């Protein structure tokens, strides 16, 4: 009994200690973002107080990051890409499952094998090709995410659709639905759980992606948050007080997203990795 009680205290205590260690880096960033340059220089570990406390880092970092604009750029690119990926990957996966031909088997194999290709292997010819057809802009970027996200999303949808009985569709054909209607009215609503997984995985990747936008986007007014943060940091790396405020601002949207979508995110990760 004594043993049991000990466990009841020790395990949570260990858990909380580890949680504190995990949070510590972000806590240090947050507290120091409220210090003046001199405050950071004098004492990194202490709390911001007295003459070392300031709120002025934030407005300046916010402005330098052009945050409203870069936030909406990130949002437009992430949401746009995720939407087209969901629409076209689910359609393609369904067709590949339902047509049992050599062509569909080969295409599925091709999508799966391409998972092994690291981005660096295609990036130089990709940017060259996209430049020639005038795709180096946000809409072109969405098209590129559709191509890059196709493999994983089709594999996930494919695995899910295999378990949906075809009889459902046969009944709908008798009722006079065409193939397009069958997919959108009958099949797509059934895909909701896997659609959530596919969305979460793509949103997390595209929102945070740096290299592709860096290669594709050549105008400051199109820059996404990671891109703006990178250039901002380059300018202010000696001015940690501003850089830290910028980092905190950059992290806010994803943390808010996490607070609201936590359950879906964790379920999405679990489902996405098992398949």
């Amino acid at each position, binding site marked *: 009994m004594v043993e049991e009680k000990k466990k009841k205290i020790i395990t949570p205590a260990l858990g909380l200690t580890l949680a504190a260690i995990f949070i510590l880096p972000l806590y240090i960033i947050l507290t120091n973002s409220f210090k003046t340059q001199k405050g950071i220089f004098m004492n990194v570990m202490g709390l911001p107080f007295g003459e070392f406390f300031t709120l002025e880092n934030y407005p300046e970092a916010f402005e330098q990051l052009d945050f409203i604009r870069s936030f909406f750029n990130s949002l437009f690119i992430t949401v746009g890409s995720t939407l087209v990926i969901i629409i076209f990957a689910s359609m393609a996966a369904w*067709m590949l499952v339902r047509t049992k031909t050599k062509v569909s088997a080969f295409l599925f194999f091709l999508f799966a094998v391409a998972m092994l290709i690291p981005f660096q292997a295609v990036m130089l010819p990709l940017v060259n090709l996209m430049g020639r057809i005038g795709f180096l802009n946000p809409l072109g970027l969405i098209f590129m995410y559709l191509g890059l996200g196709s493999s994983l999303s089709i594999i996930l949808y494919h695995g899910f659709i295999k378990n949906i009985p075809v009889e459902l569709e046969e009944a709908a054909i008798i009722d006079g639905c065409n193939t397009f209607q069958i997919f959108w009215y009958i099949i797509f609503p059934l895909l909701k759980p896997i659609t959530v997984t596919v969305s979460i995985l793509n949103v997390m990747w595209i929102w945070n992606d740096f290299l592709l936008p860096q290669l594709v986007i050549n105008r400051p007014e199109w820059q996404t948050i*990671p891109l703006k943060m990178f250039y901002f940091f380059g300018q202010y790396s000696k001015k940690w007080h501003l850089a830290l405020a910028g980092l905190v601002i950059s992290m806010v949207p*994803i943390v808010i997203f996490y607070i609201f979508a936590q359950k879906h995110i964790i379920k999405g990760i679990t489902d996405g990795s098992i398949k």
Partner: protein
Amino acid sequence: MNNYKKWFPIFVGPILLAFLMVVIIPMIVGIYFSFTDWNGITNTPNWVGIENYIKAFSDEKFGDAFKFTASFAVVSVFTINIIGFGLALLVTKKMKISNFLRSIFFMPNLIGGIILGFVWQFIFTKGFASLGSIFGWSFLEGWLSTTATGFWGLVILMSWQMSGYMMIIYIAAIQSIPDSLIEASQIDGANGLQKLRHIILPLVAPAFTVGIFLSLSNSFKLFDQNLALTGGGPYDSTQMLALNIYKTAFTMNKLGLAQAKAVVFLLAVAVITVTQLYYSKKREVEM
């Protein structure tokens, strides 16, 4: 059946077009470019045979980047998976705060590599130095200014970021173990360690395949964190493969050479991940 085929181009066409234009064609063109003196400006590069590959293999920095990447990948696969599995064991114990703990451990995963790299740059250079001077620990000073501290800095950053992800995978595996098995082992008098060794570990082996696969390929392909944390410095000694390829292309403007390195990189990634999957799958069956 015929009806499906008629609609095939409409359903598969759009994403196939994007996939071909963004992945397959660049891949093929890239292999061709790796045999040319392509510089990105002229569209008709000259064929130079395997010259770029010879240059890539005799490039000392590329060799160093390869070694650095391989050692980093080996070390971080261990740390990420051990910490991740440990956290999973911890939060699957019955306690009120386990959901809260999961949320905390997973959180670093959501933040982008560039931002995290800068966050840890501050922690290592300013935070560590400050702790070092408070406690008089000299090993906390000068982080990221040497190859070794750059290496361990990257390992710490990646372990911190990815072990929460692995935790999620291991939680799912641990929870799928039937309670009856655990109870039976308890009746048989197994202690905690024996339970772990003979019941939990063999049954979560498939999850280890996934965890090692994901952490290995992520570590091998690491770019953002490398760029933001050390930028490859000091003197390119903490430069990983992806960053070396990037700098070859955009700092040195040798696109043909960069593309040859990228092809080598592709082969290395493919060989490592396929081998790892093969052996883990085999081991799972044996266990």
